[in-house]
């Protein structure tokens, strides 16, 4: 029996969390979403023209997915807490992907603000999934204040640069008592596989699918990549060596005629 992803008591069949940012249309988004098999889907909260066509909620719900609102674009704990409260009221969910960023060039998390917001939201009964730096100490602190998972970045949001610090990620994984979701930086399928091979419990994939030339095809690739990486992790890889280790038997070799 294979172990399933479990966050805050909710069991997921899929280890891929689907980010909806960057799709050119709701149709493409919906088609890509179905290919991934994801069960949890992010949304942002914004002022919006009510006349703007289409409802993202309908697309997500028709795919049978849970909604994970985020606090993207917030620079302070206060703004993130406000956005989370608005999301809870609008969408009727306690779940929140907490993002508090430090600047708009790197979109890297602001550690002190993030931790403060996490603490407040946990106290208010939210299920907090913080987007965090690949910093083992901050990840531990977030867990200690009651976050349901930690979501370290592989590299900056939308950079597609993969996992820049697998060593820090390994430390986060070793220390974590809650699920670790790799968030941000995945550019292509192999990055998702590496995250899962390293032992991440899930990955959050957005731009790599939505901004691919063919998002629906990339969605298929990501589903397989996540599954492959997880299987490889469970199977237990061979150790890396500097020198070769023969795979064919060294016993029973014939005596070769080396004179002729």
């Amino acid at each position: 029996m294979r172990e399933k992803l479990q966050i805050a008591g909710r069991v997921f069949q899929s280890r891929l969390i689907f980010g909806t940012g960057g799709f050119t249309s709701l149709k493409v988004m919906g088609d890509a979403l179905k290919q991934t098999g994801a069960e949890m889907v992010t949304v942002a909260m914004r002022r919006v023209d009510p006349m703007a066509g289409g409802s993202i909620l309908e697309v997500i719900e028709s795919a049978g997915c849970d909604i994970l609102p985020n606090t993207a674009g917030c620079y302070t704990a206060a703004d993130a807490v406000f956005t989370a409260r608005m999301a809870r009221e609008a969408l009727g969910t306690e779940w929140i992907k907490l993002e508090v960023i430090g600047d708009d060039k790197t979109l890297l998390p602001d550690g002190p603000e993030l931790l403060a917001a996490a603490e407040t939201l946990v106290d208010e009964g939210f299920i907090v999934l913080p987007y965090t730096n690949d910093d083992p100490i901050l990840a531990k602190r977030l867990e200690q204040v009651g976050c349901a998972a930690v979501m370290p970045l592989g590299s900056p949001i939308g950079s597609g640069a993969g996992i820049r610090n697998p060593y820090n990620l390994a430390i986060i994984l070793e220390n974590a008592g809650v699920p670790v979701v790799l968030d941000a930086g995945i550019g292509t399928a192999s990055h998702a596989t590496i995250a899962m091979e390293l032992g991440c419990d899930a990955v959050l994939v957005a731009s790599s699918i939505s901004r691919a030339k063919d998002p629906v095809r990339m969605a298929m690739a990501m589903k397989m990549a996540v599954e492959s990486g997880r299987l490889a992790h469970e199977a237990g890889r061979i150790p890396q060596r500097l020198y070769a280790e023969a795979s064919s038997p060294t016993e029973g070799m014939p005596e070769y005629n080396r004179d002729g």
Partner: protein
Amino acid sequence: MNLKLNGEQRRVEAGSSIPDVLAILGFEVTRGVAVAVDGEVIPRSGWDSFLIRDGMQIEVLRAVQGG
């Protein structure tokens, strides 16, 4: 009275309710919409009875695509 509605100054009739304000913005369906007044989230159950006063700042947010 004057309100700041999603960052824009708007003039509305005195005694307008939150549903009135949402109608001004053009919301026909208010599912998935949250409203805050002066930074405080107003639960849907309190929309009809909430007394909007001159100079209040109202934010209306809803879910959009975002990672």
